[in-house]
């Protein structure tokens, strides 16, 4: 039984959340319910990618996440602080209303984490923050 579980774990750890680079931004869409190791792994993956590409902003889409507990919340706010030290801004986009309610009731504050309703608003937020003029198509 133990052997089977170990095997399952090693397969699950092969899961990678893709990080897409567009211009100065990194875009990450979390589409699965992450276990703790995967959350930690994603954190270091994103920081490594900021270091490698010199990205100025990171957009993290959590619109399909059905829950954010204290561990994932801490991972997100920790990542925002670390990215800030690396001169990159992090915006969390698309949090579900039920998740927002639960996070507040849980008592978890996420200092330094910017949020936006959706990817488009998050992108606008980053551009404003970085002093780019937002070009609307005419």
């Amino acid at each position, binding site marked *: 039984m133990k052997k089977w579980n170990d095997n399952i*774990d090693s397969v699950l750890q092969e899961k990678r959340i893709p990080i897409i680079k567009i211009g100065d931004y990194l875009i990450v869409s979390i589409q699965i319910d992450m276990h703790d190791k995967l959350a930690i792994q994603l954190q270091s993956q994103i920081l490594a990618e900021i270091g490698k590409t010199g990205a100025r902003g990171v957009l993290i889409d959590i619109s399909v996440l059905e829950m954010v507990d*204290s561990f994932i919340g801490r991972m997100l706010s920790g990542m925002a602080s670390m990215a800030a030290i690396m001169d990159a801004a992090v915006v969390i986009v698309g949090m579900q209303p039920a998740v927002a309610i639960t996070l507040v009731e*849980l*008592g978890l504050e996420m200092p330094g984490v910017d949020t936006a309703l959706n990817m488009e608003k998050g992108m606008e937020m980053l551009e404003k923050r970085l002093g780019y003029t937002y070009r609307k198509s005419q």
Partner: protein
Amino acid sequence: MAELQIDKNRDRIATYTIQTENDIVLARQYVRFHAKQFGMGIVDQTRITTAVSELFRNMYQYAGGGDVYVDLGDFAGHHALIITCIDQGPGIENLDQAMIDGYSSGAGMGFGLPGAKRLVDEFSIESEINKGTKVQVVKWI
């Protein structure tokens, strides 16, 4: 805090074992499934899933795992989903302290137990040093 008295029409729905990090993920998904199955709204589903996720992680981190029992029963005049988490870990030395926001004896943030308590309708905890800990949470349906 004493054990909650829930004995009327109590039905055992499921039993899960937490041994690995992935068991935490699977068990919380099963709990959400049961919450939905018994007609909880999306916010209550999220509350109970988040609360049990904190409890399951505690069992995994501090006791190396444990057992989870999901029951359906009546409590204080309400139909309720009852989740019981039992581990054979080191126990909690100071329960009052463990229930304070921001207090943590380990690597956690200290929001696990007090946060979980705020997310459910009834909460009870018993712990005995070197024997283990039993946490019960109740969410009205």
